[in-house]
């Protein structure tokens, strides 16, 4: 929640991603209240409507839910759901980009495997 907003991406997307990251990291726990749109607006000095847009993405994806009159809460199972989706994104997008770059640089499969093993060590 305390990350800096950048100009490279829409602010509402950054808001929803930051909240997701916080859930993954255990900063926001399941069944715990998350900051309201007005609180987020003040924290980032952005318009509350923009903050609301970021929150709504998470509601639509079942990550957050609304308790009438109380506020927004983290859904049970949200952490696992985010992890699964990010994992899928990693394979679908980042890994493919990485493989394409390796291919264009003429890096062989074996070289790549060696470097992955080295990186893990």
């Amino acid at each position, binding site marked *: 929640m305390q990350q*800096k907003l950048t100009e490279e991406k829409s602010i509402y997307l950054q808001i929803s991603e930051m909240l997701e990251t916080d859930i993954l*990291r255990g900063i*926001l726990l399941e069944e715990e209240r998350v900051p309201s749109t007005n609180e987020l607006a003040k924290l980032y000095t952005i318009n509350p409507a923009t903050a609301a847009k970021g929150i709504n993405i998470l509601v639509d994806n079942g990550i957050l839910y609304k308790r009438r009159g109380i506020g927004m809460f983290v859904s049970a199972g949200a952490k696992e759901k985010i992890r699964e989706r990010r994992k899928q994104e990693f394979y679908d997008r980042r890994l493919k980009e990485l493989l394409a770059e390796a291919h264009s640089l003429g890096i062989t499969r074996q070289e790549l495997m060696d470097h992955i093993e080295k990186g893990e060590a």
Partner: protein
Amino acid sequence: MSVLKCEKLVKTYGQHRVLQGLDLTLESGKIYGLIGRNGAGKTTLLSMMSNQNPLTGGTVTLDGEPVWENPKALHRICFARELNISAESGLSKYTVKRYLQTAATFLPHWDREMADRLIRDFDLDPKKKLGKLSKGMLSMLTITVALASKAEFTFLDEPVAGLDVVAREQFYKLLLDEYTDTGRTFVISTHIIEEAADVMEEVIILNRGKILLMENIQALTSRACHVTGLAEEVDRAVGGLDCHGTEVLGRSKAVTVLLREGEAVSKNCDVTVQPLSLQKLFVALCQEEA
């Protein structure tokens, strides 16, 4: 290479101590940005470096010679102040033309052709009275005086205040034109940090009458970063580093880190490390002092 040096500079206005033993060395051939909050002492510093404000303590020297009431040194320095013209002020009746003629008599290297050209570029009417000029137009006039002064050391106090974004871009271009042609030294104070950051070489951060930091801008921003995450993870990641502006929010923590030579944020910590713009770094450093 020429050097303008301030040593142990002190300035008090009555009980109020504005500058508190400030040391600063400016080398010729650079564009310096002077940033600091309202009341930090920017204008006081610039006026003291240019003989327009008596020193309470300390010295200002240009190539080893005191600047105070020393025409030889002062011929090489120009401080273009922000103009505030009230209706009662005698200056309000001056026309743009007359104001420039007056400036010329004080500035031995005055470039009249350049002044005329800038007035045309800025679309300022030479016959107009200063009292009738808008804030932005007064800024244009100040910029004209500063650039046409051709002084080796030129100080501009908030030259872009009141200028619209197009005029600000125009100013940065004129400044760079003049700088690349002549290699004159400029010190520019500003609150519009992000815009000016691209044209400055060194940044001087003034806070509560002291130099908080003076460094090459690229070097400074490349060693600054913002680290966020679960408080324990952040502590693990930044242990032993030079941390500023720490903020805690529930289980989350954010710190601004200034990495020293050879340092890095610890790997294998689940934290987000982001670059920081000069403006955001400035806010983090000044908030901490408040």
